[in-house]
């Protein structure tokens, strides 16, 4: 069946079985390899992307559900000229070790900050439940708090510029 959606700002139409996991369509058909396959059963979060602004585990999301929606993967998280606040913080704290699970963590964190701009440790514990085999959780926690600061600074400077 034909499925059309906007991914990272670009219109795409695919001819695929509607039950194909969106992850497979993204990686194998659209050749966007940033989103990773981890457990394949929506448990580890390596395949996390955003669909209409909500995070979903794309290994368990049939591509037919994406019809007409806006998808963002790790490749489309930044605005093109500047890294997303979460990516900046990740870089600042050198969070990744092997790096495999990190796109999923970054996408989950971006979704968290959209809902809770200044998360507490408890918010982080509740919402960031992806799995990292390298155990980079400690650095991630610091980076999430830092990302919240960067985001707040950006919002504050944007509103100052808008007032000028």
């Amino acid at each position, binding site marked *: 069946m034909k499925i059309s959606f906007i991914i990272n700002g670009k219109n795409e139409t695919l001819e695929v079985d509607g039950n194909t996991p969106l992850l497979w369509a993204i990686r194998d058909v659209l050749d966007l390899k940033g989103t990773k396959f981890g457990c394949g059963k*929506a448990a580890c979060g390596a395949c996390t992307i955003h669909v209409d602004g909500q995070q979903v585990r794309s*290994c368990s999301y*049939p591509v037919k559900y994406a019809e007409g929606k806006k998808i963002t993967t790790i490749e489309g998280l930044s605005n093109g000229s500047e890294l997303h606040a979460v990516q900046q913080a990740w870089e600042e704290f050198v969070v990744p070790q092997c790096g495999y699970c990190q796109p999923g963590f970054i996408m989950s964190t971006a979704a968290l900050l959209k809902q*809770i701009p200044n998360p507490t440790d408890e918010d982080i514990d509740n919402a960031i439940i992806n799995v990292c085999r390298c155990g980079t959780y400690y650095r991630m926690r610091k980076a999430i708090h830092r990302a919240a600061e960067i985001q707040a600074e950006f919002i504050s400077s944007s509103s100052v510029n808008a007032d000028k």
Partner: protein
Amino acid sequence: MKKSIFSLLAVLISLLAFSISMPPDLSEGQKSELKTSPQDSSNEAFDKMMQVLMHQRCVNCHPAGDVPIKGEDSHVTRSLGISGGEKGHGLKSINCQTCHTDENNDFSGVPGAPHWALAPKSMAWEGKTRVEIATQMMDPKLNGGRSAKEIMEHLTEHELVLWAWDPGVDAEGTPRETPPVSKDEYIAAVKEWINKGAIIPNK
């Protein structure tokens, strides 16, 4: 003489006892009515309904805490770390629909149905007896203000409830267990029990 009086008394007592234990002479219709009196058939319907409601396909969505329980053994997958939150729909940034859609996913083994969510905490069933569950289920203060008719609709028409008979396969491709009573029998039992006054037996 005394001996014969005692023998006569013994015979009379036996006859009396026999006549008491014999059922009255009833027509076939009356006999069948006796076997399934309204109370009996209501209890029978209750038994059938509760066999389903106490099955893990139902109880797993009505956990005692706010963490989903899974599988035929109603276990908690701690590595998932997921919480149903205040209303059972998950948290702001990560909710049930992060992983579950409106249908079962045979690729990942993740189950799905419309309105996938945990029941609110006031409707927790895990660890309760069938009488406690039924009492709580029919109490508007604990069942979301539903009338008996609305409870009947929830139990017999709601897609998430009826998913119990179409639970899909797990991540290994093994079909999930369905409740021990067929869907049609269950629906008929719920309607009969509620239509007969939703009488909850003592145990």
